[in-house]
């Protein structure tokens, strides 16, 4: 009886997972093989023939300054933007953690940026930042400020501000749900012990939220590393290559300059650079999901 039962379960397991396994075979294993094959091939769009190139693409990549500067830009951008977004999101979540008129409505409004595609957000930014017709330059010149948003010297700050406007809603939402999961008993106990608001925040709320906040931070960092749409639409990676994220570098190398081999090698090196951190990240996720329950 029990053997037929477990056999039935085994067969059912395979059948239920079959669609997933087919999808993984077709869209994970096969493409990964293709990606690796491309990376060891001399594959340039303008040249008709492709031929095996060994590790030539990887060797070229190691001495390609644009690749490494794009990695550096991506990391700095991700770190700065994520720190600001986490801080603002948490602050806003603490503000929302009170009772005030219109809270539900404002909460819904605050979530709107999450629902807007980053590429569409970038188009709207181009609209409101346009030198001739945009509201923002108009307002700035009205108050007598001259700040050219897309200037070489300002572009990093501008892109950070735009990223913050776009993604703080996300850090806010996750920090807010983490706050809601804290039991009110802890606060009551703190109040009985005579802790003031500030002490409660620093000694109790923040330490308890720490694992959840670590996840939010990791999510933002990982998300920023893959940032492509908004910066590409806003600056195309320029002026020059000064705002080129690693995503933009790979995209341009393949689809603008036509060097598929080099771009495939860059994609693989990017994932190899991330791999050492994977076990740590996965562990953080497991820890965080358990502690917020």
């Amino acid at each position, binding site marked *: 009886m029990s053997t037929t039962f477990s056999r039935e379960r085994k067969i*059912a397991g395979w059948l239920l997972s079959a669609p997933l396994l087919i999808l993984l075979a077709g869209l994970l294993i096969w493409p990964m093989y293709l990606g690796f094959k491309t990376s060891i091939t001399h594959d340039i769009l303008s040249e008709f023939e492709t031929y095996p190139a060994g590790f030539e693409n990887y060797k070229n990549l190691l001495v390609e300054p644009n690749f490494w500067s794009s990695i550096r830009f991506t990391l700095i951008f991700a770190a700065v933007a994520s720190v600001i977004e986490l801080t603002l999101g948490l602050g806003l979540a603490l503000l929302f953690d009170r009772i005030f008129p219109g809270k539900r409505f404002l909460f819904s409004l605050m979530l709107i940026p999450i629902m807007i*595609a980053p590429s569409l957000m970038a188009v709207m930014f181009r609209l409101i930042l346009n030198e001739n017709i945009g509201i923002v330059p108009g307002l700035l010149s009205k108050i007598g400020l001259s700040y050219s948003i897309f200037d070489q010297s300002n572009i990093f700050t501008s892109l950070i501000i735009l990223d913050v406007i776009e993604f703080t809603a996300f850090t806010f939402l996750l920090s807010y749900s983490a706050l809601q999961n804290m039991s009110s008993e802890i606060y009551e106990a703190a109040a009985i012990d005579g802790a003031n608001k500030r002490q409660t925040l620093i000694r109790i709320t923040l330490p308890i939220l720490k694992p959840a906040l670590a996840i939010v931070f990791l999510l933002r960092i990982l998300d920023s590393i893959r940032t492509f749409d908004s910066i590409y639409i806003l600056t195309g990676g320029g002026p020059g290559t000064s705002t080129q994220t690693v995503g933009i570098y790979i995209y341009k190398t393949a689809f603008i300059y036509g060097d598929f081999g080099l771009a495939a090698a860059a994609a693989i090196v990017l*994932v190899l650079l991330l791999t050492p951190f994977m076990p740590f990240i996965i562990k953080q996720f497991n820890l965080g999901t358990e502690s917020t329950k």
Partner: protein
Amino acid sequence: MKRNWGVTAAVSVIVFIFLIPLTGAFYTSLRTDAAIASGPFVWEFDSNWTHYKNALGAAGYDFPSFFRNSIVISLGTVLLTVLVSFPASYAIVRLGFGGPWLLRLALALRITPAIFFVIPFYKLFTAYGLIDRPLGLILANSFINMTLALLVFAGAIKEMPLEIEEAAAVDGASIWMTLRKIVLPLLGPGLAAVGVLTFLFSWSDYLFAVVLTSSEATPVTVGAANFVTSYGVRWGDISAAVCLSILPPLVFATAAQKYLVKGLSSGAVKG
């Protein structure tokens, strides 16, 4: 209770700042071309919704077809993602299929930047004639969203009381019947969370769309971005097109806000 209007005022100002891009675009979409051209603070509004009519076909843009493509791609992705990941997550959680490895793989894939898959997908889809077809983007987006769906479904199934399924098994129900008659109805909230997140993320996709489509299957994200470069002076029409493009996910996600919050915060990783 004391009414905290001070907090309301502070929060309103902050929320307004975050919504400047959206209100700016909406404002522009309502103004006449003459007003737009003569500066941001000329108050002259168009009572005919001209820019919206233009965006929806009156001016001969391809925008209506971009819009259709986005709808087909997003709904197709939701359907395929649910069909693939719901049965698999039941097999993983309740039947022990693949041990802990399939979920760990899902998490690792979630961390892998999508750009990693762009060149392989381009090569694969070129070989199989899937370039510039909605099916290609449905497959690519389903692959990317599948990991999130697996994690959300697995979490939801783990939280379901095992007793009901055991009782059904004692009563002689097969695994299939249990799945259809018991698990699926109980999984409503998880299903809604996966549905709304998958719709949102596939509607938002730009990277795969820009690489895997050229004209026939182009969705609104790529369409709107190209719009800016090719019709750079028609800001009114562009704003209307962008506002229209934002509307479906906005309405859907606001209606399902509870599930959006649940899905995003249940340890699920954003795409």
